[in-house]
């Protein structure tokens, strides 16, 4: 027996068929081709750009295709201070993204309002859109963003990918916040 024995998929033996769970395959596809919507609103967006550069290279995780159209993206990275005036725009862009979609709150401002405790800043983007991953820091280093995105990959991997296909699942709503 040589050292090159192939224990993996062998088309001659398996007959070009792979058996797996649908969830495993679909989540594998989804988590390795996240198309981010860069919602860059303030200084954090600069770190987001750095994460896209060659030094930190977000493309190692399959997320380099930043799309400036919500129709083509599935993960909104909210990078920066969300003012009340901008909030409706953030929400509308979120609404325009196709399911399945995720939201990453990057930095203190997007997560909680950060240092802007004032009349003009929304105190956390989770008041208007459901957030999947919060990243701390002001601004978070690109490594922190990459770590957050890897957390998101883990999370996507645990999802029931077909859960919403057969029943009329409401778009993730925020009714729990209603008074």
């Amino acid at each position, binding site marked *: 027996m040589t050292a090159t024995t192939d224990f993996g998929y062998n088309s001659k033996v398996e007959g070009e068929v792979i058996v797996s769970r649908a969830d495993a395959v679909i989540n594998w596809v989804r988590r390795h081709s996240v198309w981010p919507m860069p919602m860059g609103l303030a200084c954090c967006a600069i770190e987001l750009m750095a994460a896209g550069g060659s030094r930190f290279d977000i493309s190692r995780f399959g997320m380099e295709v930043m799309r400036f159209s919500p129709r083509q993206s599935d993960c909104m990275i909210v990078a920066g201070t969300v003012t009340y005036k901008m909030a409706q725009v953030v929400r509308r862009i979120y609404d325009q993204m196709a399911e399945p979609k995720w939201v990453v709150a990057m930095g203190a401002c997007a997560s909680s309002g950060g240092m802007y*405790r004032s009349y003009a800043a929304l105190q956390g983007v989770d*008041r208007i859109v459901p957030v999947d991953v919060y990243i701390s820091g002001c601004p978070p280093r690109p490594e922190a963003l990459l770590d957050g995105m890897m957390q998101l990959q883990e999370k996507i991997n645990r999802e029931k990918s077909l859960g919403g296909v057969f029943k009329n699942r409401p778009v993730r709503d925020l009714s729990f916040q209603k008074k």
Partner: protein
Amino acid sequence: MTAQIQPILEAHPDLTERSSADNPAVNCPQGKVLEVLTYLKEEQGFDFLCDLTAIDHLDVEPRFEVVYNLFSTQRHEYIRVVTPCSGVTDPICASVVSLWGTADWHEREAFDLFGIQFDGHPDLRRILMWDSYPYHPLRKDFPLAGIEVDFPSEELMEQTGARVKAAPMAGGPFHASQSGSILDREPRGADESWNEHNEKTESPESTTDIPGDLEEGQ
């Protein structure tokens, strides 16, 4: 310093010198402001409006003052002109958009944040806050944390039930100390004895109280 503005004071006896830590400054009565600024621009060469802003003195009469910072691109000199506004809750000031086009947005900002009506402005709308916002946030009687109002977008309110709420101050506002080592200069709350879980005990002038006379401001 006075020597620089002496000819201006002589040409316009209504002006008085204003104490200033840097550039020469003059006080100008509201009725004369357009005339004086035109004179400064046309005859004294102050052709550049660096900034137009306002001051709220709250309990002092007159409550609001408008400040013009002018620069002369020929003489390389600055001058500051300050004029009181007429009216207390609805301060009125003459617009200088006819002299400097840049005053357009500056006046909109002063209108948005201080509620100063600029008489003669071509398009006096809010510029930072949304159009339906009922208050003028840089007025001294407006709490920094804000006052609960509706969101600018009804659609958003319907979908999320969110409202514009007063921000949690939690001991704030947050300042970075100007002295001490860099370790002590992290921004921190001015009064850390209270936070979200630990209510502030005595509150003679709580930051989230809505002063009664704010309601009428528009």
